[in-house]
Each structure stands twice: as structure tokens, then as C-alpha cells.
């Protein structure tokens, strides 16, 4: 592997009581890669995301981001290091306006990093920029509860983007959306990737995953069973069995 | 040294009896908090309410307190169902349960307590029954009937509830609701109705617990507040929603409190439960963190 790995996951395991959610999962993500993560329901994808980002503590294994170990760091510090995520079920800040939702990561991630510090005017501008990017500029003063499903998903993504991440994990950002809406989100993610952001896409919508990913990882019952080019992975008999066999 | 060992033994036995009673006090919350996720911080107030009604029945009609409580069971069940209905309509449906639900029960706690103060004053009340004065003696161990009988009845109540929850259809539905609300909806059973039944049962246990309480000690309205700490300490120590664990935790607490009261004085007793609660929450909150 000549490319420097931005994210290195080694032997990650997580149990809930007697139940093993993740079993020695290992993979790497290179900079600027577009990694697709797929697997049947209950295979551990969300648990994996939670362990990577610090929402859950894993029992064994290690997670390295940009060469440094992040195990044990609280979630907010990982975000400041450059790992951002969007939640599967959007979790907006309900009492704040749409624009203010974007402010939070700007105030607490961007401004918390060493170096460039956004002043009040720059903050306003950046909020507006981000909302424009996802097409929510018109609803800036509104409340999250007034947004449609798609708009909430976009807000989720915009909030993750506001943290200026090096790695963005999009957790089922397109579930339940229409064909066009899925294309919208895909276009957004492509644009981000072109701008230098590494993306891990967790999805059930196969056409999206296939067209977007440069590499595919398949998780079944907490174990990684395939890891390679999309076209090859989908032909892998284990993968076929996992999806059709049950 | 002989005196000390005897004292210790008595303290432990007293603690066990006390613990059984504490389990009866806690089982209601084990259901409402452990299974339904409703922080009914007003449960002790319902217990005290039960104590007072039992007191009235006992003093006016000479009814045995435990019998009186059994008669009260359906009344308290209805009360619990009504309270849950309000809680459900106002909070669970709207979705912002946490803070407002807590405040709701907190307010209820004070309303009941103060209403009792206004109605009965702050004098201690107690019931009369044949067995209250009697004590059985086995060597160095004293078994006052006023503690032994509530202990026995508590165990009986716990066993009955355990059987109900594991054997009957509704009981099992309650267990299912506590674990997976979605599954129940898919089964086209109405979770709200099941929860209402469960909450009703939870408050019904308060009637019996109230009878036990006033048999064991004289009661005045603010006594309930001492029990909040005990109840939640037992729930946390024993694990939520597990009756055997709860019983063990209750007896443990009873023993520690009894020993503390015997050797250090009764004024430290309230702090024991709360102290244990704080320490447990701080250092061993397994299953409580980020549930």
C-alpha cells in the first residue's frame, strides 16, 4: 500500500453483555478514498461507526487516525482531530435554528483547533456557505422540526461538513429517499471528496454504493467477510450468500 | 466480646427483616422505572398514602392493616392506571418525557405529602394489631412479629409478582414491552395499554408496602422522602428489572443500615442508602451509562 492510510482499524471487537457485535474487524482507509461499507441489518455497521467515533468504547483492538491512536479519546476530541459523522436518524438541535445548528460545530470544532479562528462575521458567512451548499439557505432561520426528511438529512450532512473533517462517515444518509434525492446527496458527497475529504459511505441502497465507492467492505454478523473492488466483492460467493442465503 | 457478637447478630437479623420490607417498597419502582422507563420519583408518596388510608381503616373499623391493604389493591391499581394515563397523554406522546416527566412526578410527590400534612398534621400515626407487640425469641435473636410478618408478606408478594410476570399472558407482554416497544407494536398489542396495566400494578404494590410500613414504624408524611434514596439505591445495586437481584440488594441495604444504626446511631441511617447510591452511581454504573 503506497498511499498513507488515514484510518487504520485493527482487530476491533465490541461485546454487549454476551452478544458480540463486532468480531476482530480490521481495515484501512487511504486518504481521499471513497469506501463503501455494506452488510445486512444487524451486522454491526452502526456499532462500528460508534466505536470509530467514540460514542461507544470498544473492548479490544485499535483505531488509528492520521497515524495516532484515538482509542479512549472522547468523541469531541476525535471530531477535532478530523473525524466527522452524520447520524443514521438525524439528531438536530431542536431548540436552535437551522443556521445555529451549523454554528455549533463551527464554534466548537473549527474554532477549537489551533490556527485559523473564525470571527463573528466569518462564522456567519461560513454558516451561510454551508447551507447554500446543501440547498438549505432559504430555511436558515427556521427550526429543524419544520424541515422535510430530505432536508433533515442534508442538515445532518452540513453539520458534519461544518467540522471541516478529513474523514466523513455518512451513516445511511440516504435511507428512504427518492431517486433524485439520493442523487442529490451523492453529488454532495462527490463534491466533498473532490475537495479532499475521505468518505466512508454506509448504505443499503446498492446502486448508490456501487457507483460511489472506489472500494467496498462487507460486514456480516460483526465480521468483515470481504474487502476489495466493488465489482469483485459483489461476485464474492460469501457476500452473495450473506445477502440471499438467509 | 460476647455482647458485641450478639449485638451484631441481632443487627444482621433485623437487617434481613428490614431488607425484605425494603424489597416490597422497591418492587413498584422496579416495575415502573426498570421495565417502563418511567422515573416515578413519587412512589414513596403513594406508599405513605397507603399507610394513611390503612391507618384510617384500622382505627375506624378495626380492620387488620394487611387485610385493609389487600382491599385497597384495586383502588390503588385504578389510581396508578389513571396517573399513567395522564403521564402518557401529556408526556409520552409528545416525546419530551425526560425533564417534564420528572418534574411532573416531583410535583406529585410534594402535593401528596403536603396534602397529607394538611389533612393529618405532622404527628406520628401507628396502627394497632394483635401481633404488633409480640416478639419471638430464639436464643440471642429477637424476631419481632411486627417485622417478621411484613417480611413474610413481602416475599409472598414478590413471588406472586414474579409468577405473574413470567406465567401469564399479560405478565409476559409487560416483560416484552420493557425490552422492545417495536416488537410489541408489530404484534398489534397496544403498548400503552400494557404499560398502563403495569403502572397500575406498580402503584398497587404501594398499598401493601404502605401497610407494611405502618406496621413496622409510626408514620408521618415526610417519612416518604427517606425512602427515595433507598428505593433507587436498591434498584441501582440490584440491577433494574430483576427481582432476585433486587431482593438481594434490598437485604444487603437492610443489613448495612441496621449495623450502622446499631453501632453509630440512627441519625446516620438516611445517609447510608444515599451514600451507597452515590458511590454505586459514581463507580459502578454498569448498564446505566448511555443506555
Amino acid at each position: 500500500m503506497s498511499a498513507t492510510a488515514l484510518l487504520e482499524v485493527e482487530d476491533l471487537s465490541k461485546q454487549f453483555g454476551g452478544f458480540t457485535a463486532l468480531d476482530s474487524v480490521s481495515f484501512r482507509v487511504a486518504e481521499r478514498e471513497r469506501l463503501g461499507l455494506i452488510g445486512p441489518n444487524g451486522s454491526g455497521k452502526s456499532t462500528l461507526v460508534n466505536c470509530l467515533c467514540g460514542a461507544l468504547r470498544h473492548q479490544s483492538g485499535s483505531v488509528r487516525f492520521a497515524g495516532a491512536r484515538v482509542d479512549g479519546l472522547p468523541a469531541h476530541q476525535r471530531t477535532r482531530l478530523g473525524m466527522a459523522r452524520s447520524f443514521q436518524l438525524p439528531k438536530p438541535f431542536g431548540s436552535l435554528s437551522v443556521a445555529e445548528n451549523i454554528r455549533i460545530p463551527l464554534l466548537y470544532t473549527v474554532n477549537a483547533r489551533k490556527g485559523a479562528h473564525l470571527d463573528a462575521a466569518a462564522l456567519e458567512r461560513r454558516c451561510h456557505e454551508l447551507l447554500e451548499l446543501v440547498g438549505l439557505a432559504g430555511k436558515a432561520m427556521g427550526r429543524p422540526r419544520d424541515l422535510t426528511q430530505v432536508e433533515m438529512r442534508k442538515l445532518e450532512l452540513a453539520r458534519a461538513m461544518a467540522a471541516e473533517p478529513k474523514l466523513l462517515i455518512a451513516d445511511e444518509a440516504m435511507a428512504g429517499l427518492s431517486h433524485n434525492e439520493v442523487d442529490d446527496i451523492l453529488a454532495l458527497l462527490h463534491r466533498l471528496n473532490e475537495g479532499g475529504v475521505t468518505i466512508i459511505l454506509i448504505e443499503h441502497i446498492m446502486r448508490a454504493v456501487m457507483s460511489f465507492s472506489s472500494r467496498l467492505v462487507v460486514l456480516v454478523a460483526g465480521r468483515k467477510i470481504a474487502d476489495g473492488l466493488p465489482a469483485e466483492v459483489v461476485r464474492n460467493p460469501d457476500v452473495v450468500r450473506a445477502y440471499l442465503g438467509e | 466480646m460476647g455482647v458485641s457478637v450478639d449485638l451484631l447478630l441481632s443487627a444482621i437479623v433485623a437487617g434481613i427483616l428490614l431488607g425484605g420490607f425494603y424489597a416490597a417498597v422497591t418492587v413498584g419502582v422496579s416495575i415502573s422505572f426498570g421495565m417502563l422507563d418511567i422515573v416515578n420519583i413519587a412512589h414513596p408518596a403513594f406508599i405513605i398514602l397507603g399507610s394513611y388510608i390503612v391507618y384510617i381503616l384500622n382505627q375506624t373499623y378495626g380492620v387488620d392493616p394487611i387485610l385493609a391493604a389487600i382491599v385497597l389493591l384495586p383502588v390503588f391499581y385504578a389510581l396508578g392506571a389513571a396517573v399513567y394515563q395522564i403521564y402518557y397523554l401529556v408526556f409520552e406522546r409528545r416525546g419530551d418525557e425526560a425533564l417534564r416527566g420528572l418534574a411532573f412526578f416531583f410535583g406529585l410527590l410534594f402535593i401528596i405529602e403536603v396534602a397529607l400534612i394538611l389533612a393529618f398534621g405532622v404527628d406520628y400515626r401507628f396502627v394497632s394489631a394483635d401481633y404488633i407487640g409480640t416478639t419471638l425469641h430464639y436464643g440471642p435473636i429477637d424476631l419481632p412479629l411486627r417485622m417478621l410478618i411484613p417480611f413474610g408478606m413481602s416475599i409472598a408478594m414478590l413471588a406472586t409478582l414474579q409468577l405473574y410476570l413470567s406465567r401469564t399472558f399479560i405478565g409476559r407482554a409487560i416483560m416484552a414491552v420493557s425490552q422492545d416497544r417495536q416488537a410489541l407494536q408489530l404484534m398489534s398489542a397496544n403498548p400503552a395499554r400494557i404499560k398502563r396495566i403495569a403502572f397500575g400494578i406498580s402503584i398497587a404494590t404501594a398499598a401493601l408496602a404502605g401497610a407494611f410500613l405502618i406496621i413496622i414504624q409510626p408514620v408521618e408524611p415526610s417519612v416518604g422522602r427517606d425512602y427515595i434514596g433507598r428505593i433507587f439505591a436498591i434498584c441501582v445495586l440490584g440491577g433494574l428489572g430483576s427481582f432476585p437481584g433486587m431482593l438481594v440488594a434490598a437485604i444487603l441495604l437492610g443489613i448495612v443500615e441496621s449495623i450502622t444504626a446499631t453501632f453509630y446511631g440512627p441519625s446516620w441511617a438516611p445517609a447510608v442508602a444515599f451514600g451507597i447510591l452515590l458511590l454505586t452511581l459514581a463507580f459502578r454504573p454498569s448498564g446505566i451509562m448511555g443506555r
Partner: protein
Amino acid sequence: MRTRTFWLVAVLVGAAFFGLSLLAPNQYYFQAGYKVLQYVVLATAWNILGGYCGYVNFGSAAFFALGAYSTVALYKILPVPLPVLILIGGIVSGVVGLGMGYLTLRLRGAFFSIATLALAVVVQTLITNWDYVGGSRGAYIIRPMRVPILGHYIEYLYLIMVVLCVLAIGIARTIERSRLGYGFAAIRDDEQAAEAAGVPTLRLKLVATTLSGALMGMAGAPLPYYVTYLDPASGFNLAYAVNSIAMPLIGGMSSWLGPLIGALFLGSIQEYTTVAFSSSSGLNVLIVGVLLVSFVIVAPNGIVGLVESLRWRRR
């Protein structure tokens, strides 16, 4: 308006308020006013953790009483002027708030609240058993002979409370408009999402509990001089616990205005019932309890929320 302007206005309003108060016909006004103002500080302090951050503290009485009892403890050692006592009360309660936060803030909301209740009882038991400050028998405090500036000592206490009110409200307002306030709101709305967005939730929550505790301690520090006889029953009185929750809830929890309105409204009602019915404080707490439950059911955003929704509807 800008925060600096707000402080200026607050100080001026406070001064004007106090000036007007001096026209009061008799001492009773200061006696009663002190209690109501005390509640303003308590409610505002509670709201910083409760309304802004979303963590319900059932143990306000403990922080309040710690302030009062640190005054009693120091009173026996050396004569210290009241403002210093207030500072010390604030520090003691602030440190306890920090400690409590550290022990309990990793818990889910409901467990945090129960832990605060546990703390209140533990503190009360410790103080009841501490004979140095009088234990359950209580302690007597003698008011100083000379009163700084004003005629009667009660007026001086009243002035101190006005200053504390201005301070508390000013701090609350400053937080609201600051980065810290945004962080608190994010924690309240969705703590997990806040963490993911870079908010150091544990640290901010600790700030909230420390600040909230400190302000409550400062409100409690002058109490011994007000009552001249302090025992645990009155220091840890039921009414403080219920009111510090009821007032912000009934007034409105989303801004500094709510606790102020709630405290003035409920505080006055309680003063009135105490005087008019001269019964035990039981009736007071009953009224507060009923109002609390009613508002929680009918108007969860409090009086401020009601007014806002009326204005919104008229548009």
C-alpha cells in the same frame, strides 16, 4: 441588546429598584422582599444547569444550605464582613458542585437527578451530625451592631440580595449569548450529537454545575443573619427544593427572564399565603406543587412561553 449594555441596564434597574424600596412604609417589606429576591437568585442559578443544559438538579437545598452553614462555621472563628462570607459560601458550594458533577455527570439524565437528591440528603445528614455548627439543635447568629451605610440591618441584607440578583441575572444573560450558551443548548437538545459536533460535553456540564452551585451557595450565605437562628430543618427546607425547580419551570426555562418572573410570581403568592392564612408552610408548598404539575401539563414552556405563543399567534 449587547451584553455590556444589558449589564448596565441591569445595574441601573437594580439600583432604581432598591431606591424605590427605601420608600417602603415599614420593615416588613424588606423582610418579605429578601425572601422573594433570594428565590430569584436560586431560580436563576438552577436554570443554568436545568433550563440551559437540561440537567434537573433536585438537590438545590444542599448547595443553598452549604452557603448558609459555611457562614455559621466561620462566624464562630472570626468576624468576617458579609460580602466575604458570600464569596466563601459561593466557593464552598461551587467546589461541591464540581465534585458532584464529576461523580455523576456521566450518567443518564434521570440518574443524575436522583444522584443530586442523594447528595442533598447526605449533606443534610452530615451537617445534622456536625455539632460544631449546632447539629440538629441549631445555631444562633447575632447580627452586627453597626450597619454599613443604611439604617436597619434588614435593609442591608435586602441590598445584598438585590446585588446578588443583578449578578445572577447578568451571568445568566451573558451565558445565553455566548459560545458557552450555545454549547449548553446543544447538550440540552442532543448530547450525543453535541459531542459529535465537537462540544466537550463533560467539561461544559461541570462548568454548569459549578456555577449553578456557587450561585446557590452565595444566595444561602446571608441566611443565618436573616433568620438569626439556623437549624438543618430550616436550612434544608422542603420549600427551597421545590421552588428552585418550580419557579424556572413555571416562569420559563429558556432564558433569564423565566426564573425572574417565576420567582416573583410564586414568591409573592407564597408570602401572601403565609401572612393571610398564618398556617404552616404546608399550604405554600401545596400551591407550588399544584402549580408545578399544572404548568408542566398545560404550559411546558412556562409563562414566557405562553406570552411568546400568544404574540406569535397574533401575527
